[in-house]
């Protein structure tokens, strides 16, 4: 792509594709960055932002596609070669070395030398002048660990720009900064933009996107949704780009449903004024038997945190939980399981499956936990359970002895569902149940959700796929800034309604 002046774009990626173990993480993604531009890269978890960044900065190798830097094709093999080409990165967590001084961090791997020895005086002087440009007057011989995260962030940026100078990639740079520190960071970024540096910023704070960015590129499920100039993109449109609403057809006929939820029988599980400081603001949640409650919101809005509270992974510091009129204390996952709750977490690979155990062992895990370790499940009973669920959920390959890590994502998810179904839960919490799953398994899992609640089980489904929520949920709770901001049901339950609630334009428009 050429810019108006006929110059090449600073960094351009065309048709980038990348798969992990056969599961596509990026598919035909284009990305263009101009010099002197701050470009926000947005998308939900698993949208492919990190994968794209890691390909551009040499951490991963792409399967398909081409990358051009100032019109020349490049192929960075590792971080060092990307840095040498001019692409510097500041990662969110792993960043710089706390055991070294500020100056040592700034010049690690490229120390100026005299007679083969590191020239510490030059390093010190150059560090000082380098940081002065960013408005930092600090002791460069002090250990990095003696400075706050905000200052470390600036030091990391100073290193990356000094090292590479053309493209600066920032992964969630403001995640652990307060408002004042964010302001300081943005001043630095604007200065760099003036100097002609191209900046890519990944963040989930939309306010900050509108404050600092010139353009946005939105990814969803590993695909490019679009690239827009921020000044011409209303917030509502941006959110619908991120959450998607191309599929307007709604499988559940909400129009025909009773207008008031009270018609659906008495709630069996009630959470009142339930919350935890710094996690989720206190909320009320009533769940009736056979009901599917959806939870919607952007990344970082408190979706998963709500699930953690409901399942006792985080302890609530306010409010009460009541089951069938009796107050219960859900202070740990064990207590939640004893009350017949189940939870399928978002990170299936790290928090869900035990990869080296067989499908049968994985399915038996929660039942075993419920029974207590003193009463082992006999191996014949385990085989029976596994075989019946492999059949009823159509888990493939139908081999209960196979280590679960060799199954596809969709089949792993089914096995985890089976794990909770054997415990006959009254409430099952599903966090992103269809993430990273192919289309076929996706539909099957949605069908399974409907079947489960027709049998009287209650479900809480967290999802960033709005069509999915409107399709399966009877009611949807909308979160924003770790607060329950709206509850939609009946004819108000549409993707548009959810997007408006997230954007804060209120139910007045939705009604």
């Amino acid at each position, binding site marked *: 792509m050429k810019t108006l002046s006929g110059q090449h774009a600073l960094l351009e990626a065309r048709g980038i594709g990348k798969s992990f173990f056969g599961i596509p993480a990026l598919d035909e993604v284009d990305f263009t960055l101009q010099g002197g531009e701050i470009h926000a890269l947005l998308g939900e978890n698993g949208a492919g932002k990190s994968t794209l960044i890691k390909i551009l900065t040499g951490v991963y190798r792409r399967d398909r596609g081409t990358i051009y830097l100032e019109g020349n094709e490049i192929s960075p093999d590792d971080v060092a070669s990307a840095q040498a080409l001019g692409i510097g990165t500041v990662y969110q967590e792993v*960043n710089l070395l706390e*055991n070294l001084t500020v100056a040592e961090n700034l010049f690690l*791997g490229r120390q100026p030398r005299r007679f083969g*020895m*590191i020239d510490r005086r030059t390093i010190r002087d150059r560090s000082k002048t380098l940081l002065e440009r960013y408005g930092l007057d600090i002791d460069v011989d002090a250990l990095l660990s003696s400075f706050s995260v905000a200052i470390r962030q600036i030091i990391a940026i100073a290193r990356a720009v000094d090292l590479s100078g053309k493209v600066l990639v920032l992964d969630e740079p403001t995640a652990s900064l307060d408002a004042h520190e964010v302001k300081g960071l943005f001043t630095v970024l604007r200065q760099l933009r003036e100097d002609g540096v191209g900046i890519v910023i990944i963040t989930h704070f939309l306010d900050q996107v509108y404050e600092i960015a010139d353009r946005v590129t939105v990814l969803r499920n590993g695909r490019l949704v679009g690239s827009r100039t921020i000044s011409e993109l209303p917030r509502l449109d941006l959110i619908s780009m991120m959450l998607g609403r191309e599929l307007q057809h709604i499988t559940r006929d909400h129009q025909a449903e009773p207008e008031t939820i009270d018609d659906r029988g008495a709630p069996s599980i009630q959470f009142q004024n339930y919350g935890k400081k710094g996690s989720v603001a206190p909320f009320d949640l009533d769940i009736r038997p056979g009901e599917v409650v959806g939870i919607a919101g952007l990344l970082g809005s408190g979706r998963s945190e709500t699930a953690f509270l409901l399942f006792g992974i985080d302890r609530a510091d306010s409010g009460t939980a009541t089951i069938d009129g009796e107050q219960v204390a859900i202070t740990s996952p064990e207590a939640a399981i004893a009350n017949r709750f189940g939870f399928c977490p978002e990170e299936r690979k790290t928090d869900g499956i035990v990869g080296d155990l067989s499908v049968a062992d994985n399915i038996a895990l929660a039942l075993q936990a419920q029974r207590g370790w003193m009463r082992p499940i006999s191996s014949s009973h385990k085989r029976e359970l596994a075989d019946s669920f492999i059949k009823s959920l159509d888990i493939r390959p139908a081999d209960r002895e196979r280590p679960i890590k060799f199954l596809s994502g969709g089949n792993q998810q089914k096995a985890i569902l089976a794990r909770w179904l054997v415990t006959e839960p009254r409430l099952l919490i599903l966090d992103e149940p269809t993430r990273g799953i192919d289309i076929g398994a996706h539909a099957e899992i949605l069908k399974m959700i409907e079947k489960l609640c027709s049998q009287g089980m209650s479900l809480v489904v967290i999802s960033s796929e709005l069509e999915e929520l409107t399709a399966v949920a009877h009611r949807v709770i909308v979160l924003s800034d770790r607060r329950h901001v709206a509850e939609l049901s009946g004819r108000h339950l549409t993707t548009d309604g959810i997007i408006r609630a997230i954007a804060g334009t209120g139910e007045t428009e939705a009604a």
Partner: protein
Amino acid sequence: MIHARNLPFVTTLAIFVIAYGLCVLQFPNMLSTRVIGNLLTDNAFLGIAAVGMTFVILSGGIDLSVGSVIAFTSVFVAVMIGSFGVHPLTAFLAALVISTLFGCLMGAMIRYLLIPPFVVTLAGMFLARGAAYLVSTQSVPITHEFIDTMLGFYIRFPGGGRLTLLAMVMLIVFAVGIIVASRTRFGANVYAIGGNIQSAELMGVPVGATTIRIYALSGFLSGLAGIVYTLYTSSGYSLATVGVELDAIAAVVIGGTLLTGGVGLIAGTFIGILLQGLIQTYIVFDGTLSSWWTKIVIGILLFVFIVLQRTIIWYSDRRLAVRQLKEV
């Protein structure tokens, strides 16, 4: 200003000075150059091995093969000279090449097969010890005029003490080690890897090459320590120097190096070696104490230093937290 990270080193130095002062008060003779010269010579092989161990521990690793490599080298050199009549210099060179390659191999396994250093060097420890038995199970004495010349070379201190060639080799190794650690890119990379290997990699540090070089260096210095040990005892014996790697680790930790890596000084290890030597010398002077007291005192010192390091980390974390609260 003293960095918090150098506090353990300063503490060790202070403890050494005070301990030496107390010893001299009781036995004024301990101040003589003769005692100092012997202390350096007696601990020369341990000091050389400890320099290599310091680099390994700074990078967050461990090398358990040191004692076995020293034993192998000493037997190998003794048999080469005694039984095959090879010139000592040729034997030394061959021993150094073997021990360095051995270290290289362990480093490559640690890096590319992603096996923890503890496991790889444990295997190396058994392998080198077994190889030593294979060469000879007997104590092999060596007599060679070139070696006599070497042992006869020393610098005389005023007061009758001698700085032997062996002690000189150790001092040179420490001096070079200090420069390499603090003034070369290799040294900086060692600290970086020990601090956080993922960060180091993302900052462009060549982690693979550096890891291999670290274990090669430790192998080389173990070989050199083996040669010095052979000269010191004028013999090679495959059962010798069992557990010397643990003495080296003790010297490194007492010298203020963090066992988790990333923080420490080669000079600290030198003080650690001197402190161990001082305790042994005191026991000899006292004459009534069992030599096991050396182990007991070293054990107590190790405990004290581990607690001290924890306290410093805890204290500096807390200070940072307080400062950040104030900023808000």
